[in-house]
């Protein structure tokens, strides 16, 4: 029995619900949440190890065998993402413990975060397309709550757009599911994949796959990222960090899963389209990142760039490119959380999000400054930080497959990332220190520890790539050989 497999989703939910009864105890909630995320991380490590030794395994809920019941499937790709998101969430939560206002804490902040991560983890693990929809909704509803928690004007304004667009994207999801069910009569991803392969992905199935592409692109911010900058730059720090780290990743995951497991037979249509979208995303994100003077907006556009970058890997779909995307995906979760935490801290310190209002922070907050510096380099893919290896693998794959436009855009986008963050660093951390040390508001004690943990993580991932390599290789191999996944899910039945 692989019941452990449900825990990355179930544990946060149960803990989150229990926290409802502890509403007034903000700190207790925080500690419990952090502990539960650490336990989840531990479980994920175990799962990862198990996948490595025993291969893909699954948990049939209620004991109903696929394709009839719902199931969770653990392969290296999904478990790696579960692990990363759990760790990042734990760290973000510890930041919240230190920084979040009492009022927010008692307004169900922690339960909402836990539900969010539950939805995220569930989306990574589920082996059923409709259940993926439901997991998405768990994640989305939590994100709605988190996005509006605080109720500032800007939050409400952006939330309207975010929620509306997500409702429409969920609609597209249902439309796609309806079409797919009508065409292949099943919902289990492996079973769908098997049936699609059996008829060789007819033109109709390709059309349906494009509806899925739209759905997941909306979630991932692939080309259809209109909702992203506003909503990522309006909520409180920790929420932004979690959004930046996790939300788009789920869409990206879904794109990788569906277009490697199910709809990989007509790459000249689907993957070409993904490539074009990724290219446009890189361009749009790059321009957006340098177009504004609001550091939150800059950070948000950096999210867009990363999405484009990762999807380049899928568009190319060679072992190296997929591996690169996975590395970059993991890197980006860590680095984006870090970026948003730092940006949020800067805003808290200076009371504004405009670059013009900050100067010379380096002098009074050197640790903050250096953390930002490392983040900047990491995001720009400067070696040996975590962003590097993904960049190398994806560029290499782009060359091998002759995708020179994507190569150029991917590499140039790093320059834009660098430039956009360099502007922030230059203007905010350097320059004359306007306020004396005494006048500057002190950093809350320990507020940088979570950031430093993430800094260490981004350095560690970069230097310790080899430690991850077997898992990533396995993940990419599984993605590119759908038979492995299908056998693991349906093998026993046939």
């Amino acid at each position, binding site marked *: 029995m692989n019941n452990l497999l449900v825990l990355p989703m179930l544990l946060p939910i149960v803990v989150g619900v229990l926290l409802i009864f502890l509403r007034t105890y903000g700190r207790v909630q925080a500690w419990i949440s952090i502990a539960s995320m650490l336990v989840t991380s531990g479980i994920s490590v175990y799962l990862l190890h198990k996948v490595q030794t025993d291969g893909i395994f699954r948990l049939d809920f209620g004991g109903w065998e696929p394709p009839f019941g719902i199931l969770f499937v653990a392969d290296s790709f999904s478990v790696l993402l579960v692990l990363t998101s759990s760790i990042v969430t734990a760290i973000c939560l510890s930041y919240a413990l230190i920084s979040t206002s009492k009022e927010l804490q008692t307004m169900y902040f922690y339960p909402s975060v836990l539900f969010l991560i539950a939805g995220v983890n569930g989306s990574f693990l589920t082996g059923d397309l409709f259940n993926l929809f439901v997991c998405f909704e768990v994640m989305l509803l939590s994100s709605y709550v988190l996005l509006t928690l605080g109720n500032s004007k800007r939050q409400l304004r952006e*939330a309207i757009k975010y929620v509306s667009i997500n409702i429409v994207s969920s609609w597209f999801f249902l439309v796609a*599911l309806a079409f797919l069910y009508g065409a292949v009569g099943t919902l289990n991803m492996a079973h769908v994949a098997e049936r699609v392969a059996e008829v060789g992905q007819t033109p109709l199935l390709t059309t349906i796959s494009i509806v899925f592409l739209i759905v997941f692109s909306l979630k991932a911010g692939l080309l259809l990222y209109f909702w992203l900058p506003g909503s990522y730059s309006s909520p409180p720090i920790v929420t932004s960090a979690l959004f930046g780290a996790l939300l788009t990743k789920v869409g990206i995951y879904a794109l990788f899963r569906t277009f490697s497991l199910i709809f990989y037979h007509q790459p000249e249509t689907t993957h070409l389209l993904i490539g074009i979208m990724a290219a446009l995303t890189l361009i749009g994100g790059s321009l957006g990142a340098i177009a504004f003077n609001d550091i939150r907006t800059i950070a948000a556009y950096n999210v867009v760039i990363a999405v484009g970058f990762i999807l380049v890997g899928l568009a190319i779909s060679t072992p190296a490119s997929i591996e690169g995307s996975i590395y970059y995906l993991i890197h980006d979760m860590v680095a984006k959380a870090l970026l948003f935490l730092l940006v949020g801290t800067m805003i808290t310190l200076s009371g504004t999000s405009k670059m013009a209002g900050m100067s010379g922070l380096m002098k009074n907050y050197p640790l903050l400054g250096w953390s930002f510096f490392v983040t900047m380099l990491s995001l720009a893919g400067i070696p040996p930080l975590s962003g590097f290896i993904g960049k190398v693998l994806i560029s290499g794959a782009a060359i091998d497959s002759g995708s020179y436009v994507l190569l150029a855009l991917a590499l140039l986008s790093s320059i834009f990332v660098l430039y956009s963050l360099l502007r922030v660093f230059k203007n905010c951390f350097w320059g004359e220190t306007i306020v004396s040390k005494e006048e500057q508001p002190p950093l809350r004690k320990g507020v940088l520890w979570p950031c430093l943990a993430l800094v260490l993580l981004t350095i560690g991932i970069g230097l310790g790539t080899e430690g991850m390599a077997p898992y990533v290789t396995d993940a990419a191999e599984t993605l590119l050989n759908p038979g492995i996944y299908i056998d693991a899910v349906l093998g026993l039945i046939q």
Partner: protein
Amino acid sequence: MESLIIILVGVLTTVAIYLVLSKNIVRVILGTAILSHAVHLLILSMGGLKLGAVPLLGEEAETYVDALPQALILTAIVISFAVTAFILVLAYRAHQELGTDNLSAMRGSDDE
């Protein structure tokens, strides 16, 4: 029948999209509500509106209609209710704070 329902779905979708494209937030919410009506019908018709019996085994029929889409729609209905409730309250809270229900006035900008 299926084709007729699918065409109806198309009509509903058209109306809903037009509403969603408008500037008034209530129209948009209404549009999303109609969108979900449309997709529920779509799911149902995708399961085939074959003339089986109601999926209750007590009916002791030869064939039953496809029960799976029904279960899916049920889930979808509840979810769309949850979302609608949330966005409705969000809309009026936004109106309370921002003083407008017009999306053109909710653009926001980098220079606020």
